């Protein structure tokens, strides 16, 4: 097990370097630059800016400097758009915002999704099954840039129950709408995955054995069926959680949250090279780590994976 983890971690490092290099190259290829705006700058002013940020150097020097600073000091440099703010500090500051929303949304999605999915599976082909799966389908189909404004319209602008946007720390009522908006689609997916997983497991031999040995239905469902039925949900959790932790562009934008996703989209639009590279590298690391965690969790939940 330990060897497996170490090997996976070692593969991660070159993967990250490739991701950073590709990102760097793509930014260099993109037209435009961070300082252009509606007000045109004169050539001399442009030169001053390029010199200040070392953009006048040949590409291999720029690349070398970027890579050296990242590998040698884990320092992603200073943002070009936000004068004097280091990329590391921006990530440190915005990650908790994205992570709070993401974890809450996923926790909510797990609780509701697994409950609904299990009920639907246990009462297959009942009206409960149909109704919950129909709602789940709707949840998957409605994109969050539609759902978010609708929720705001109902609960903020009409009923005045909750604030329509902005970050206000944890816990706060400001979290309700973004968490709900973000979690609905995951809720729906998890419900469907749970239902499918459970149906498969409920028909398998070991469940029949469990029933045959006289276990109560509660024990059968919770100790045996659910454990097996949740495997698809677990493998879905890795990438989903990585995605949620590192911020979601649309929700953060609609609700004006100072999270990573918001910075990511702004950085790309602003051609803010160090910030883009920093966030991409961070997302890549998170994604790889999450996948590793999922593999480990698999091994714990399913003995067959462990023995292979």
């Amino acid at each position, binding site marked *: 097990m330990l060897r497996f983890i170490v090997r996976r971690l070692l593969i991660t490092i070159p993967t990250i370097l490739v991701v950073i290099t590709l990102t760097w190259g793509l930014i260099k290829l*993109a*037209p*435009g*630059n961070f*300082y*252009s*705006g*509606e*007000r*045109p*700058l*004169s050539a*001399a*002013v442009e030169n*001053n*800016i390029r*010199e*200040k*940020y070392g953009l006048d150097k040949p590409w291999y020097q720029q690349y070398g400097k970027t890579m050296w600073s990242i590998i040698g000091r884990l320092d992603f440099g*200073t943002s070009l*758009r*936000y*004068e*004097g*703010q280091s990329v590391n500090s*921006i990530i440190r*500051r*915005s990650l908790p915002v994205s992570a709070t929303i993401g974890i809450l949304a996923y926790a909510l999605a797990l609780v509701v999704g697994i409950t609904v999915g299990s009920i639907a599976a246990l009462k297959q082909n009942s009206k409960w099954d*149909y*109704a919950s*799966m*129909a*709602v789940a*389908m*709707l949840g998957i189909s409605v994109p969050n840039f539609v759902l978010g*404004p*609708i929720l*705001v*319209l*109902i609960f*903020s*602008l*009409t009923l*005045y129950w909750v*604030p*329509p*946007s*902005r*970050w206000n720390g944890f816990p706060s009522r400001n979290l309700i709408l973004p968490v709900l908006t973000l979690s609905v689609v995951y809720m729906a997916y998890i419900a469907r995955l749970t239902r499918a997983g459970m149906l498969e497991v409920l028909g398998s031999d070991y469940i029949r054995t469990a029933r045959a040995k006289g276990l109560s239905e509660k024990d059968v469902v919770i100790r045996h069926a659910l454990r097996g039925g949740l495997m698809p949900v677990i493998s879905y959790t890795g990438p989903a959680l990585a995605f949620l932790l590192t911020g979601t562009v649309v929700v953060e*934008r*609609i*609700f*004006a949250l*100072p999270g990573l996703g*918001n*910075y990511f989209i*702004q950085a790309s*639009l*602003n*051609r803010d090279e160090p910030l883009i590279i920093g966030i991409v590298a961070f997302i890549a690391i998170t994604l790889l780590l999450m996948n590793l965690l999922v593999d480990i969790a698999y091994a714990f939940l399913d003995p067959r994976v462990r023995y292979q």
Partner: protein
Amino acid sequence: MSSGKCRQIVGLILLASLACTTLSCSVVSSNELYFGNPVPPKRNILRYVSGDEPASLDPAISDGQPEARLYMALYEGLVEYDAKTLAPRPALAERWHINNDSSEFTFHLRRNGRWSNGDPIDANDFVYSFRRALAKETASHNVSQTLYLKYAQAYNEQQVFVRDPKTGQFLLARDFNESLPPDPLSGTPIDEAKPEYLPDANEPHSDPDTAFHRQMHSPMRLTLPGTEKARTKLLDAAPKLKAAVAGKELVPVKAEDLGVEAVDNYTLRISLHQSGPFFLGLLAHQVFRIVPRKVVEKYGAAWTQPDHIVTCGPFKLKTWIPYDKLVLERDPMYWDAATVKLDELHFYPIIDNHTVMNMYKVGELDAVYNHAVPNPWLHVLKDKKDYMDAVEAAIDYLVMNTTRPPLNDVRVRKAFNLSIDKKAYAAWRQIVKPLTAFTPEGIFAGYPQPKGPAFDPPAARRLLGEAGYPVNQNADGSFSCPTFPVAEVEFIYNTQGANRSVAEWMQAQWKQNLGITVPLRNMEWKTYLEQRSKLQYKGFSRGAWGADYMDPFTFLSLFYIGGRSDTGWLDPKYIAMLDEANRTLDHKKRYELLAKAEAYMLDQQPIIPIDTASVNWLKKPYVKGMYPNAASLFPWKYVYIERDQSKWDFGTPSLAAD
């Protein structure tokens, strides 16, 4: 999926959409006088959205308008914009006098100016701040605003003077460029017999003369590029200059050569290399606001971080959480702290205008920035009593690439202008005013703004015919222009807001009146800017321009030296006309000359004027002392929260001076 399940889903969707429609109707069609119930905040604070997260809290560096409003709270300069007219009002300068051709300005500073850490402010702070703003290392985006200062450009571009080692004399620019306009008074030797300033009853003693002052009062020196490569290139092209420079020593232009001087601790003198009747108004611009030398030198780029920052405006920084909020509090050290009414000023950086509108409606914002009301909301909001309906010192226009055929032919450019019905356009956009000139309509009092030609499709078709692209009328009454090289033109725009519908509107006009269908191409903002600034686009692009100061020159200078119109049109005759106007002392005569230059430019048609913009923002009725002025720049110290309902605003407050 079973049909029953299917029906259930369809039913659910219908139900949900019905609920949404009912709700949105109830929200939109409400007959409330204001947008959202106006309830003043419990504390004496103003919650405002100024746009995106500020690029920097350093007033010298960033050129954005969201930042400009923030800097007006944090920093002060010699003068400040008037709340209604934006005219320059005394700020850190108590009074000033201007020489007879507006080329030298002397400011007397107030003695009680203080930084937020309690240190006194004196003339040296201004000298330091101006030099720093122009230093190459600062890489300010605002350099173009400061180039009127003597040797500003030479210093910013690290150029060199040329000095004769034997005599110690500098070579003069005029000797090598006869087309240069005559030096202004500030650049001619002081003549005691002819006083440079009009006598002032309040100021019986003239300001002391200094060695630096006399140095400024000499003809403009010749400056050459600082780098060997650029210099050699320039000299190789000018043999006479090359011969004159040979054997001379090159002296770098230093910060000390810049036309700004602390005559004494409370007197500041600014020398320009040209007449600048508009310059006093420009001095309220962010780049001329002062920064604290000690703090900047100690912390470098990190000086604006909350732990270090020292400011000089009516408010000082309390907390700054990027992309969340910026809280400013009243600065007790400020010289006019008694006038400051608000305890705190909150800026929320929000990009999405729909989010801004939501927050305003539920009462989490007291005012929003200009252009914040999205187009689809206008038909409801423009009749509300808290909608700010006022004209903006900003214009929308179309840019044309005059360097590529077929638009390098002025007749073709004119034809495209004549075939746009600007009145119909303005009616369609609801809040803008049609425009035929390049200066905004109804902004500069007394300016005899020239009028461009009105909508005239037959004339447009005639002009196209003369240019070699005859327009034929088809049997059904429509037009076609088969010889026009449609593949050589397109309309590029960035994907944002109403740009797409505007482009489609123009396309329809040209199709209808000329029979030409110009292809449209949308692109991401930075890509679009790149195409436009490098003149890589063919045909048309959109353009927008807002005033930096209240003078027509802020628009006309887009086609002046150092300006960049992205049209490729730069005409020496036009530049000479502007120079002549700016040298003219009589205000009325100057305006007439500027108008003449504008008429000339319009006739050359590098652009197609479209509309004068509207400020288009909202403010709760209890927010007083904040006016929908033409540049949406607010001197925050006068803003307050009125708790007496009978004194609330009802409709757009008047901009007429008190």
